[in-house]
């Protein structure tokens, strides 16, 4: 329902910029300001900024915070230094995914920030609260009061330092953050992103997000919509919840086993199911597929071998950075070897494709 859609604190600015607005994850969000290709290329070659204020911020604190986050999170946060960020998932007991998220170890003992997908905020918060019995923790969903801008691209550091005056950002390693201030208010600046390029994610108040947006826009940073956010993350091999991950897909099937610490951690929700799936072997897996033709594979199209369906496309595009028709697809294990010849049904025709790596673009992260 159109009238039930939420607006981010930058909504008026998107409309004033003439953005094409569309529903996403319960919000009305900018898809593009000019066109997806130009915005995509701005992030690859210069710097772009995204309003990602729809993302959720959930704070977990208290004497049992580390133990509790480790209980609900697939990655291992034991003893990680303050300012470190880990990617991972919250799993259901059967090993499928509640959500994928970032966990920030705050500069205060027993404090963690969990950044979750917009479409899953309510579900995640409810899930987290339902698991906390027996743990001395406080869980706060602060999503409504935080805004977020993702500043991404090879020139992101230059704009962060020279335009926004965030000098310490230059020294940040990949997947770390520091506590900054914007006019006396708390601001979190992390070297993270969802594009395959270097860049920062800046979390702050709604007022600060509005100021920062205007300053970056005036400095020449290109406003970018969710359209190119998807083409960028896709090329970089990054999953999107609802496509490559879901409550019907396990991280092993998505090729994200490195973020599920079955060996290092004795206990977390979903561990036993993932351990059992490792033991038994997978029946299907997400792979990359490249078509020889220019036809574009899209989510939902069948993957076939000799007329029999053996999988389904989860995301596909004519890749902007590589000018190839490529997709990621969930395919029966028997057909997931690199080099396997498959076919993708696109409307009435089938097109030959070859199984390849699911990262189509060489990422440019700063170490």
């Amino acid at each position: 329902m159109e009238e039930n859609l939420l607006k981010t604190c930058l909504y008026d600015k998107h409309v004033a910029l003439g953005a094409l607005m569309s529903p996403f994850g319960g919000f009305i969000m900018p898809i593009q300001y000019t066109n997806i290709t130009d915005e995509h290329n701005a992030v690859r070659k210069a710097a772009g900024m995204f309003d990602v204020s729809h993302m959720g911020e959930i704070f977990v604190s208290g004497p049992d915070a580390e133990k509790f986050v480790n209980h609900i999170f697939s990655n291992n946060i034991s003893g990680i230094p303050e300012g470190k960020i880990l990617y991972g998932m919250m799993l259901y007991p059967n090993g499928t995914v509640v959500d994928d998220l970032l966990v920030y170890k705050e500069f205060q003992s027993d404090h963690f920030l969990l950044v979750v997908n917009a479409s899953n905020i309510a579900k995640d918060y409810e899930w987290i609260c339902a698991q906390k019995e027996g743990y001395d923790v406080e869980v706060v969903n602060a999503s409504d009061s935080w805004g977020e801008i993702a500043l991404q691209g090879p020139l992101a550091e230059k704009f962060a330092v020279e335009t926004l005056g965030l000098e310490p950002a230059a020294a940040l390693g990949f997947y770390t953050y520091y506590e900054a201030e914007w006019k006396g208010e708390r601001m979190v600046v992390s070297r993270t992103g969802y594009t395959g390029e270097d860049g920062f994610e800046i979390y702050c108040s709604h007022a600060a997000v509005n100021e920062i947006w205007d300053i970056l826009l005036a400095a020449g940073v290109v406003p970018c919509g969710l359209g190119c956010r998807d083409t960028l993350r896709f090329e970089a091999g990054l999953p999107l919840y609802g496509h490559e991950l879901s409550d019907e897909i396990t991280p092993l099937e998505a090729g994200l086993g490195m973020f599920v610490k079955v060996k290092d951690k004795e206990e977390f929700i979903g561990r036993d199911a993932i351990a059992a799936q490792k033991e038994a072997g997978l029946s299907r897996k997400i792979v990359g597929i490249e078509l020889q033709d220019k036809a574009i594979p899209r989510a939902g199209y069948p993957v076939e071998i000799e007329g029999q369906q053996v999988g389904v496309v989860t995301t596909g595009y004519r890749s902007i950075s590589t000018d190839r028709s490529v997709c990621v697809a969930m395919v029966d294990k028997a057909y997931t070897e690199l080099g396997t010849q498959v076919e993708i049904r696109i409307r009435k025709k089938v097109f030959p494709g070859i199984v390849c790596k699911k990262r189509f673009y060489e990422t440019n992260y700063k170490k």
Partner: protein
Amino acid sequence: MAKTVEGLYYSESHEWVKVEGDVAVIGITDYAQHSMGDLSYVDMPEVDDELAAGDEFGAVESVKAASDLYSPVSGTVIEVNEELEDAPELLNEDAFANWIIKVKMTDQSELEGLMDAAAYEAMCAEA
């Protein structure tokens, strides 16, 4: 305001038809190319394919989405515009100067069910 061309027939699904004898030259309208944005692929049928009016005969695709094409008339595909295979952006540059397929019509009375430029403009204005 998207432009139209007088003397063509228009379908509700935003194709135009130019009649040359018993051949229907078919393309997409300026309104259609504009609402799709930059096109990156045009999926076209094979020559000799038989189409009934209303049949899907291909698609135009932008980065984000595919939009099906429907034949406004029945007949046999006699030619496809191969230039569009390598240059789909021609449709963005001038949707009326760049046709997609030519169909040898079997029932010219089907043209009567299509719109003229004024009626099509009125339909777009309501959307």
